[in-house]
């Protein structure tokens, strides 16, 4: 890897590590980086796969989203690279995440099956997708079994409750039909018949003693019927939304969409109140039309949603289609074109819950797409432009909670609370302003900055400086360290420096917090520091050494594990020579012992290769604990023993005895020697 690649890769890694929540801006950044640095694809893929594999389960999904976005936008070679381990990662992830995340993974997979705009082919190759699909089929069969065993053992009172709920639900539908003057419709008659059946069933259950098995059958059947009714209500909301969408005026778009959400939310709550009260948070929300396979599918969906709906009282659920419509036009746009909604996880994620087996139902999606297209053709859709405040809001407001409030006003209030603060907006504007100016000024072309008494005191100079040049030392470098206020610019180099800088803050703060260290028993010192600045303090270096000192040795924040590079070695030798002067017969300390790079070690031995064999007594090897170490101990990878540092009076440093450093790792000198000899 050359330096530039390394910087870009490091930056990618850095940004990726920030992806601890569902953040569209971060994913967009990663995608852009991937698009712009195709040459780094191999490394990006490696890092991202590693991230998916290693990060905590709750964050794996977001890493998958990043993968998804990169593959859909940047295409090959990413798609090819990712295909290799995709199934393995997908499977591994699926098996350790909770059901809520599983449903999202399924949605994600589903989106992969759709042809992309660019190629007309699915994102990944067919073999990969087939393997995943087969896996999901098996997994859902397992779910089915689990679900049945999870349903409460049917008892007569329990079934009564179910029947009562269904009756209430059907009554609601009948009322709906009456309100709409549809009393003569087929549905109306069916519902009346259904009510009758329910009544009969209740009587049967009350009178007769049925076997457990039979009760189970009844239970499952009831669930199925229930699903139908629920389905109906959701369809109803969907239609309402579509109607409202038609009525939308451009200006009122945001408020409208909010009201959809609250409206839908509210309705859903009503539904649960009627239908699911006794289920106490485990109400079942079917998502699909009840046809042929519906039994199994809806059960799976129930399963998938159990946790979801019980976890959050704010979730609501609609069909796959309307969920996109239910949010804003802008996210509708995202939703349909990318199959993914990063922007508003809380309002969208549950909506996205669909079953992968339902993919055959592309028609539904197509219908929506058609609707969308025709609305857009009639200019009935407001699509915010890229630089609009709406887009900005979406970006900034990446996490939005929709609660059950039925008040549109309170939603608007909340919305405005979540708008970026004036100071945030001012920051953006000022940074932008400064950047524009900084790009167009040059100290060389500023005759007024010629150093003369007249110029320094002239108002004209002041005006030029205060309007222009001053930005060079403030917002011209827009990235201000949140810890110390140091500013960094936007170039890749500056961004890399900032990464190192942040790492350095982290290390030094961890270190300054203080840890308690136990000095070795057989060590002479009793100096055990707790909650103190324990690392070495130094004398001033001799003038001669100061003459050759470079401040980069202090301010370099780079944590470099690559101790092999020739420059480092040259540097090392140079410093070693400086360090050899002695005073009063004692070894003198050397400047580099205070430096941040771990490879800069003092003592008799600086690297395993060059002096290992020259020393008679291996136990005399030691390494000065680098300042960059967060923990003052290490584990010898050969014997697995933990080595803690001790304080050496003679050299005035915390050291690890019997230790050598090889390729940035530490070992017992004795262990290393033994292993090497074998």
């Amino acid at each position: 890897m050359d330096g530039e690649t390394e910087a870009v890769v490091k930056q990618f890694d850095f940004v990726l590590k920030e992806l601890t929540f569902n953040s569209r801006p971060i994913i967009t950044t990663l995608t852009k980086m991937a698009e712009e640095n195709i040459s780094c694809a191999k490394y990006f893929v490696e890092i991202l796969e590693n991230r998916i594999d290693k990060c905590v389960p709750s964050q794996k999904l977001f890493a998958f989203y990043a993968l998804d976005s990169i593959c859909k936008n940047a295409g090959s070679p990413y798609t090819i690279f990712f295909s290799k381990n995709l199934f393995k990662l997908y499977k591994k992830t699926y098996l350790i995440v909770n059901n809520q995340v599983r449903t999202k993974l399924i949605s994600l997979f589903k989106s992969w099956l759709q042809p992309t705009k660019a190629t007309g082919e699915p994102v990944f190759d067919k073999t990969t997708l087939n393997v995943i699909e087969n896996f999901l089929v098996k997994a859902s069969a397992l779910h089915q079994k689990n679900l049945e065993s999870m349903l409460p053992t049917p008892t007569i009172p329990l079934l009564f409750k179910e029947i009562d709920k269904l009756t209430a639900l059907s009554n609601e539908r009948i009322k709906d039909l009456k309100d709409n003057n549809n009393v003569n419709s087929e549905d109306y008659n069916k519902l009346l018949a259904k009510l009758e059946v329910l009544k009969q069933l209740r009587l049967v259950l009350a009178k007769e003693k049925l076997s457990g098995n039979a009760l189970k059958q009844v239970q499952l059947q009831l669930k199925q019927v229930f699903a139908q009714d629920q389905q109906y209500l959701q369809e109803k909301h969907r239609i309402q939304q579509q109607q409202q969408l038609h009525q939308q005026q451009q200006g009122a778009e945001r408020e409208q969409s909010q009201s959809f959400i609250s409206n839908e939310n509210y309705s859903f709550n009503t539904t649960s109140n009627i239908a699911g009260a006794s289920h106490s948070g485990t109400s079942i929300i079917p998502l699909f039309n009840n046809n042929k396979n519906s039994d199994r599918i809806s059960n799976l969906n129930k399963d998938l949603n159990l946790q979801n709906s019980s976890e959050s009282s704010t979730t609501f659920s609609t069909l796959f289609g309307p969920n996109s419509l239910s949010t804003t036009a802008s996210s509708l746009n995202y939703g349909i074109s990318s199959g993914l909604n990063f922007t508003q996880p809380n309002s969208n994620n549950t909506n996205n819950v669909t079953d992968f087996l339902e993919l055959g139902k592309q028609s539904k999606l197509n219908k929506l797409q058609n609707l969308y297209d025709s609305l857009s053709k009639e200019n009935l859709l407001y699509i915010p432009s890229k630089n609009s405040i709406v887009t900005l809001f979406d970006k900034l407001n990446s996490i939005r909670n929709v609660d059950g409030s039925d008040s549109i006003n309170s939603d608007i209030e909340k919305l405005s609370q979540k708008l970026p603060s004036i100071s945030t907006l001012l920051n953006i504007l000022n940074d932008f302003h400064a950047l524009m100016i900084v790009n167009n000024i040059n100290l060389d072309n500023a005759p007024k900055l010629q150093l003369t008494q007249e110029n320094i005191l002239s108002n004209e100079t002041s005006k030029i400086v205060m309007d222009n040049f001053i930005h060079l030392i403030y917002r011209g470098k827009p990235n201000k360290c949140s810890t110390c206020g140091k500013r960094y610019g936007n170039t890749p180099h500056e961004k890399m420096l900032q990464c190192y800088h942040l790492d350095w803050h982290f290390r030094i703060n961890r270190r300054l917090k203080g840890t308690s260290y136990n000095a070795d028993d057989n060590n002479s010192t009793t100096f055990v520091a707790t909650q103190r600045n324990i690392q070495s303090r130094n004398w001033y270096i001799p003038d001669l050494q100061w003459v050759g000192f470079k401040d980069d040795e202090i301010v370099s924040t780079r944590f470099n594990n690559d101790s092999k590079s020739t420059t480092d070695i040259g540097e090392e030798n140079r410093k070693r020579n400086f360090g050899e002067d002695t005073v009063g017969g004692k070894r003198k300390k050397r400047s580099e012992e205070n430096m941040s790079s771990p490879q800069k070690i003092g003592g008799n031995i600086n690297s395993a290769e060059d002096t290992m064999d020259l020393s008679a007594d291996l136990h005399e090897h030691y390494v000065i604990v680098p300042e960059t170490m967060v923990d003052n101990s290490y584990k010898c990878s050969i014997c697995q023993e933990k080595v803690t540092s001790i304080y050496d009076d003679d050299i005035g440093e915390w050291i690890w005895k019997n230790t050598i450093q090889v390729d940035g790792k530490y070992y017992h000198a004795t262990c290393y020697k033994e292993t090497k000899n074998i």
Partner: protein
Amino acid sequence: MSLPGLEPGHTGNTLSLDSDSINDPINGPINIYNGDVKLANKDEPQYLTLSIGMQWSLELGKQDLVGQHVKIYITVLSGICEVLGTELANDVEYCFQDWNFSVLAIEDSRIKWRLVNLMIPLDDPFINNVTPNDNAKYVYNLHFAIEKLRCSSFTGPKVLILGNKNTGKTSLSRILSSYSIKNKAYQPMFINLDPEQPIVSPPGCIMATPISDLIDLQSPFWNESLTSGATKLHSRQPLIKNFGFEKIEDNFDWYVDTVRQMLDTVDRRLYNDPLVQRSGCIIDTPSCFYESYESFESVLNMIISKMKIDIIVILSANTNNDISTTINAEPINKIIDKNKCSVIKLPKLTGVIPNDDAYKRLLQRLAIRDYFYGDLNTVITPYVTSCDFTDLIIWELPVNNRSDTFNGSANVGDASIPSNNQNNGNNNNTENDMSADTVKSLTLQPVEVNQPNLQHAIITIYHCPKRTEPKQILQSSVMGFALITEVNEKRQRCKLLLPVPGSLPKNALVLTSYRYLE
């Protein structure tokens, strides 16, 4: 208020420290103030809006109504603010104590602040001193003119700052240093020639260090040195030269020699370090350089020629109006080559809080404490050791206050300095070149080890063995400082504090005039 050993008017060498108020003002004795003044206390965060260009001056070098040291916490909520050229991070709470400084708003800013456990009337001027900073614009002009020079040559601009007392010389040095590292990664050499004001060192020293990263905006001493171990911000690796006296006139010859040694070493560093060379130098001077200009003519000449000074900035005690007219009357014009060196005169900085002797001594005490115990952010532990009287060989230089030094008749150091120039820093002073008085000033004398001489004394440890020839000791590098905390004449033993664990190095030791009572 009465702190032990710090009664008003106390002018001796002893620097004492009240442990309650200095070490732990928060947990010190709770004093109850019963006046009817509305007091700021820790439960009430206060808010302040600073408009662009306004400056909030804080005088924390004094005590509150009941003698506590004022401690203030400041958080910038929005906008951009800086302290002496260093930007505050937003939404980070900074703690300030024991120094006089100001917060300048670069943009309209909102600030939250609170005082802890202190009795301060809310209308006290010290927290309400907000004034427009009229002269900041000149500092920016100067900075960018200097920055322009940095862009155009491999030998950066060498700036010497002169001026009367309380005109803001050190503030200007600090601001210029801070600004110079902001746009590009320059590392200008900052040199402090005023031994009375400790910067990155204990008092009594002159110091040079490249400014290679942020100056600690909470610290009156700019930064910790690497002798403090790991610190929150990058520390400095300074070149320290020990003068050891309180006033320059206490041993003028030694001061001149110290400056010469330092500049020789700095010159070699610049030769070795292209980045620092390119970034230039910023040199802060004691006000006597300007005020007693005639006495210091030869010193100034030495600095200007050794450092190849190309810009002299004079901070005028006067206001803006008459600057342009007085510039030509500056006596400094007599001694400089106008072709090589531009002289810029600026009005004194806005909002300079006059330093009195009490404040100066407070900072000196704190700098000593800082050296052994760390600062507000980083507590460090000195090492306690002891030794026999017989182990101690301590030297001192005589106080040689030559009455002629400051009345203009002295021709200081002339005998030795020109010959040194020709020899490019080789120290070839010979006693023949110097007057008898100068010889006396530069001759180390043994100090008798006893309590009156050594109790609470700061001693300088040199990078040379104990038995080094006295003449050579003074040419050696400073290794560090020890504080003698106890002299037990009965047992013939001393207790000492060292910054670094271990026994007292068997090195040459020289007594300073500074005393520190814990």
